[in-house]
């Protein structure tokens, strides 16, 4: 059983954060929350999302799992204007999701959850540095790095108490230094890892510019990026595996 009403913006934010990594996913319709965990086919980027029942106008669920084509569902949600409410109801018999938006009715065929890639285990990471910054700052570093390279180094210098976003291109280099004055918070520890910009750019697209992004970083370890949406009732954690540093 699943029946819910949710604002179009909240649903779009939730779906966008997952669709940057995968085309299909399982949605867990738990009693207290709507949850998605997915990893991209190459096992490089993972998303763990939860949206509390309280983020919905109304929410009734009993722990079922559905499989959806995210592109399709996003297209439908895209038919709603900002501020519209989206009604969702699962028909258990036909295994279809009925979606209603301001008089528009759409019946979405679901995908067998067993045919979707297994939900990943969350890696067990002991990360030495934690940087809290605004989404817009992270975005600025990523955009600049993308001008010169296809990969990006995230580094914390514990002595300087500063967070660096760096990229080395064939000819040009980019370096963004953010010290504790620029950051919301910094727990400094030695940390330096290299990441693919392809993935980070996609994740960055989903991260709201005004969000506080908690970045956990280690030495050649995956990075964890955590932010909230829907007034703190939605939580997203991205994990991205590093590239091997050749030098």
């Amino acid at each position, binding site marked *: 059983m699943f029946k819910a009403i949710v604002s179009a913006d909240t649903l779009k934010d939730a779906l966008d954060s997952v669709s940057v990594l995968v085309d299909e996913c399982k949605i867990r319709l738990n009693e207290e929350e709507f949850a998605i965990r997915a990893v991209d086919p190459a*096992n*490089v*980027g993972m998303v763990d999302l939860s949206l509390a029942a309280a983020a919905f106008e109304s929410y009734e669920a009993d722990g079922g799992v559905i499989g959806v084509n995210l592109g399709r569902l996003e297209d439908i949600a895209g038919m709603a204007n900002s501020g519209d409410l989206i009604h969702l109801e699962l028909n258990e018999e036909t295994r279809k999701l009925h979606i209603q938006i301001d008089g528009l009715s759409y019946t979405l065929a679901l995908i067998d959850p067993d045919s979707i890639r297994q939900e990943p285990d969350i890696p067990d990471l002991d990360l030495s540095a934690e940087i809290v910054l605004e989404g817009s700052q992270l975005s600025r570093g990523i955009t600049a790095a993308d001008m010169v390279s296809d990969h990006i180094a995230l580094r914390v210098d514990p002595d300087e108490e500063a967070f660096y976003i760096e990229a080395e291109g064939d000819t040009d280099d980019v370096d963004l230094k953010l010290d504790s004055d620029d950051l919301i918070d910094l727990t400094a520890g030695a940390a330096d890892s290299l990441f693919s910009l392809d993935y980070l750019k996609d994740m960055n697209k989903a991260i709201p510019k005004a969000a506080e992004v908690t970045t956990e970083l280690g030495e050649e370890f995956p990075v964890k990026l955590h932010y909230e949406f829907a007034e703190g009732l939605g939580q997203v954690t991205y994990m991205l*595996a590093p590239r091997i540093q050749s030098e």
Partner: protein
Amino acid sequence: MGNSDLRSLAALSECPFADIEGSTVAVDAHNWLYRYLTTTVKWTDDAIYTTDDGTEVANLIGVVQGLPKFFEHDLTPIFVFDGGVTELKDDEVEKRREQREQAEERLAEAEAAGDSIEAARLSARTVQLTETIQETTRDLLALLDVPYIDAPAEGEAQAAYMNKIGDADYVGSEDYDTLLFGAPSTLRELTSKGHPELMELQPTLDEHEITYEQLVDVAMLCGTDFNEGISGIGPKTGVKLITEHGDLFGVLEARGEHIEFADRIRELFFDPPVTDDYEIESDIDPDLDAARAYVTEEWEVDADEVERGFERIESAVVQTGLDRWS
């Protein structure tokens, strides 16, 4: 024994890439290259892979396009090349195998041409693993730091041997003959679309309640790369006869038939020339700039044709997966 005969006996199952990540695969290089050559030649304008002096190196495109699939699934390929051709040239048995192989390849080409829009062009051409192709493939693999070894004779037999002694987790070949060389686990269609197909020896034997030696005998009754087979005996009858009479010679005697060189052919499957003289380095550290230069400058292949493949190789070898931490 034709491929379809052996296929009907083999224990086959779909094998998701997730199950084989981190494995080593001894790839029958001749078999793998041949498939890539036919596809490349079929779908690519020959100007792209022909140098100014007319040398064709379609293999270089094939290698660059085929390798990423291994790396992206965290598989280490070990390419096993056929060797010792000159030594065996005078050998009657080997000669027959070569003739049969060539005939099969011509047939495969004819079939490929049958459904191709470029049938006319292809049928006028023959695809051969020339000396240049063999050499440039080795050179390119070396630059990409992909392990390869030269078998004393059949690459297929050497790959099966490495699988048997545990130096390779799988054999990579489209050929069902790896069963006859005793390979425990063969992956087919490794670099095709979709998931590979796993072919296993022990379940094959269990299914028909025969021994490995008996499987080879069944194959010989049906016909192998080395012999014609007895007319009227298919795989099912073969299994029945071998079970009834114990082995090949029992069946031949009972039916008053004869297979020339039967002893020697059996030995070729049971105990083919193989070597232990190789080293496998599974840490792959390709020199991509040198590989690019080799393919596009030295051998004048259009950069556009191979760039995507090189990019895929690059990102696959430098990008780690999250599973390393879970």
